[in-house]
Structure formats: structure tokens, C-alpha cells
């Protein structure tokens, strides 16, 4: 029973996926994580469709002028605690497209990103790494929300 009250968040991170300026490469690799070979559900990860039920926002691709509103809305509609994972070079920094006219840059220009997954496109293993890292941060955030005063000793 004691184990249940520990790592509450990291046992069941639900993911919502937003495709920004991605070339599909990262998207399909993210989807591949859910398929039998990688089976992210083992780790409690479910791809829920709605941000309202999600804990982790997985973003692939960079921000452009049309999709920043979408990204912001989706982020705002997620309940706390929440974590943002930037998957792929595009989402981290803009990737090859960083100098395109319609690319604002990595999504950290818009949202606070918690985990960066490098690669173009990252292998599913890397994405799973990112999600595991994200669930750890999720748990930290939960504890922080629960005990707001305690601060973190450095």
C-alpha cells in the first residue's frame, strides 16, 4: 500500500500529442512508441485525445504563426501538474527549418519546456526516455504543488 502513494504521477502519465510544424518524422515515431514493439502502455502511458485529461504535452515540430495559438490553447487546457516534452530537433530549436520565414523557432519560445529529446527524428527509445523523464518531473511538480512552502534546498 505504501508503494501506491509514492510516485503517483509517474505511474500513469497520460499524453496528449500536438503536431506543430513537424515533418511527420517525429509524429510517427511518437506513434510507434505506442505500438507493440515499444508498448508505452507498459509504463502507464496512454495517448489521450483531449488535453483536459493529459499530464504530458508532447510537441513535435517547431512553432509557426498559425499553430502557436493552438499550442497555447492546448497547454492552457491541461490541468496541473503538467509537463511539456519537445520531441525532435524542430521542437527543441527549429531544426533544419530554423531560418524559414514561417518558423518562429523551438517551442520553448512559447511554452516552458521541461524535457528536450534530441534527434531528427529521435528513435522511439529516446522518446520513451523523454517520457520517463517527464513523468519523474511530473511527480516532482505534484509534490511541489502539494507542499508549496517547503521550497527546494540547493
Amino acid at each position: 500500500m505504501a508503494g501506491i502513494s509514492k510516485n503517483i504521477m509517474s505511474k500513469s502519465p497520460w499524453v496528449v500529442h500536438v503536431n506543430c510544424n513537424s515533418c511527420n518524422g517525429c509524429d510517427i515515431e511518437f506513434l510507434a512508441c505506442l505500438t507493440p514493439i515499444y508498448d508505452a502502455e507498459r509504463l502507464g502511458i496512454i495517448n489521450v485525445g483531449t488535453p483536459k485529461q493529459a499530464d504530458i504535452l508532447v510537441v513535435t515540430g517547431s512553432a509557426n504563426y498559425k499553430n502557436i495559438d493552438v499550442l497555447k490553447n492546448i497547454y492552457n487546457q491541461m490541468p496541473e501538474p503538467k509537463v511539456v516534452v519537445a520531441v525532435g530537433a524542430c521542437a527543441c530549436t527549429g531544426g533544419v527549418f530554423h531560418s524559414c520565414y514561417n518558423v518562429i523557432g523551438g517551442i520553448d519560445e512559447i511554452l516552458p519546456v521541461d524535457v528536450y529529446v534530441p534527434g531528427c527524428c529521435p528513435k522511439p527509445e529516446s522518446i520513451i526516455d523523454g517520457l520517463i523523464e517527464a513523468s519523474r518531473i511530473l511527480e516532482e511538480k505534484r509534490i511541489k504543488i502539494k507542499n508549496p512552502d517547503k521550497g527546494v534546498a540547493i
Partner: protein
Amino acid sequence: MAKTVIPFGPQHPVLPEPLQLKLVLEDDVVVEAIPAIGYVHRGLEKLTELKDYEQSVYIVERVCGICSFMHSMAYTRGIESIMNIQIPQRAEYIRTILAEIARVQSHLLWLGLLADSFGFESLFMETWRYREDILDIMEMITGNRVIISANKVGGVTKDFTDEHIKFILDTINRLEEKIKDVENVFLNNYTVKQRLAGIGILTPEDARELGALGPIAKGSGIPLDLRTTGYSAYKYLDFEPIVDNHCDSYGRTVVRIKEIYQSFQLIRQAISKLPSGEIFIPVKGLPNGEVISRLEQPRGEAIYYIKTNGTKTLSRLKIRTPTFANIPTLLKMLPGSRLQDVPVIVLTIDPCISCTER
């Protein structure tokens, strides 16, 4: 009649890519569906005017992650044509083989997404599991699973070893068996048939009118397959374009499944004829001229218009991808369909928004 107006996308679980459809429904029947795009517009064509024409290979590869190889192939073939380069035979064959492997990968991916669009989760899982085998081939040969960077102006960067060839043959033999199982499900499962047959009808006339390409045209009985023109190594291979006369979602599914088998066949043929020799020739000078380069992607004909002016950078690159040409068919197929069929119909054009918008 009470109208229902709902946005369908851009962030929507059934759509792997951001596309928005404004659906107007009357009692569950779609009366108006207008696609909104622009969520993945990067402005990549402009970028190639800033980069070295050799670097641009890596950029056009990222037009899209699914048939990224096809894009680099169309692009390099265009530049080679401007520069009058004859690439080695082995390179042509390797390009062809990789292109067909990419086609299998793309079609398997699509089959999975299609299954998902009508709520058949286990079938999605099954097809995507098979797809992993293809990705293993890719990773083994080229070092990456999706964006493989195997082309360069003047040939290819990765050679096949005997071990690779054996691995390819083993894998496709094994897959062919497995795909027969899922084929049976896609084409004969009662529930699946309910969701495909008669859904999203596109008559041959409409298909022509709207400029449908690839499996959509082929699923409506139009044998539009650029490979028959015999570019690259296709001229040495023996095949017939696949057509189907169902003219609906079912027809498109049939075409794509048959194309998988056809691709296996083509891979085997090409491997058996694979010549030895160099895989690229060094390139000198700068391209000057304009060209239209076309090839058959998994979703149909892609058109590359390349204009160069003797400098390192391109002066204009225009990419007309197959999905771009297939989107207008949605305007025809969606009205009159039921809400639950919208995802299925949208999926049957295999919408790749990232290449539509570039």
C-alpha cells in the same frame, strides 16, 4: 434542419497531422466540409534559395518524414538532369529498391492509421508491428529509421552489403506471409467492410476532374502510375500498375495492399538484377537551368520544379506533392457522408499535410 457545426482538428486524436475540417452537418450527414491548412507551413521552398544545392537534399528530405526518401530522389534526379550527370547503374537500382521499401513502409503505416480511423485498435497495432520490420531494414542499411538521408547529388550514400540483401529478402518473405493475414482482415472482415465499402465514393470522372493521383486515382479505375514511364531502374523491371474499380474507400485499400505485394515483387526483381560497381560519381560544377522532375510516391505523382542559375543556391524550387493534389477530392467525397465516416474518408486520401504545406 438543425445544423451542426464542428471543427475537426487541428489537434485531434484521429489526425496524426494538423488539418482542420470545418464540418457542417445536418442530422449526422455532412453537407459542407472545408479543409483549413497552414498549421505546418514552414516555407521550405524559400529556404532552398538560401542553402547550397547539395545541402538542400537534407531539406527536401524533411518535406515529410514518411516518404522522405522519395523527395530526395526527385530532387537529386532533377539536379542531376540539369547538370547532365549519369549516375551509376548500381545507384539507380539502390534508389529503386529503397523507394519501394519506403513505399511498403508508407502503405503499412497508412493501413494502420486507417484501422485506427475506424476504431480498430488491434489491427492498427498489428500493421504497425509489421512496419517495424521495414524500419529495421532502413535502420540497418542507412542508419536511420525514418529520414534516411541516403541520396546525394550524383548517387547514393549507402551501399548494400550481401548481409543487407539477405536481411531484406528474409524480411520481405516473412512479411509477405504476415501481410496476407491482415489483408484478409482489411478486405474481408465484415465490420471493416461495413466501414469501407461504399464510403467516400469518387467516380473516375470526378477523379480526373479533381486531379486525383496515386492510389486514389487507381482506386477509381484510373491507371495513373508514373513508374510505368520507366524512370530510374524501373525501366528494367517488370510490373503493371494496379487499379481497382470499386471507386470507394474499399478500392483504395485494395490498391494499397496490392501495391505492397507489388513492391515486394519489384524489390526481389531489382535485387536479382542488382549490378555491382560504384554508388556515386563525384559532382563538379554548379547547376544551371530548369527542370521538372516527377516520380511516383506512395500517394501519387510528385512534381519538382527546379530552377537554377549557375550559383550555389537554387533560384526557385516548387514542390507539388501528391496530397496537395488529392485534397480537392475531399470537397467531393465528404459532403453526403456520415460523421463517423469523415475520419475514414480523410484517411483514404492519406493526407500528408506536412508535404502539402511544406
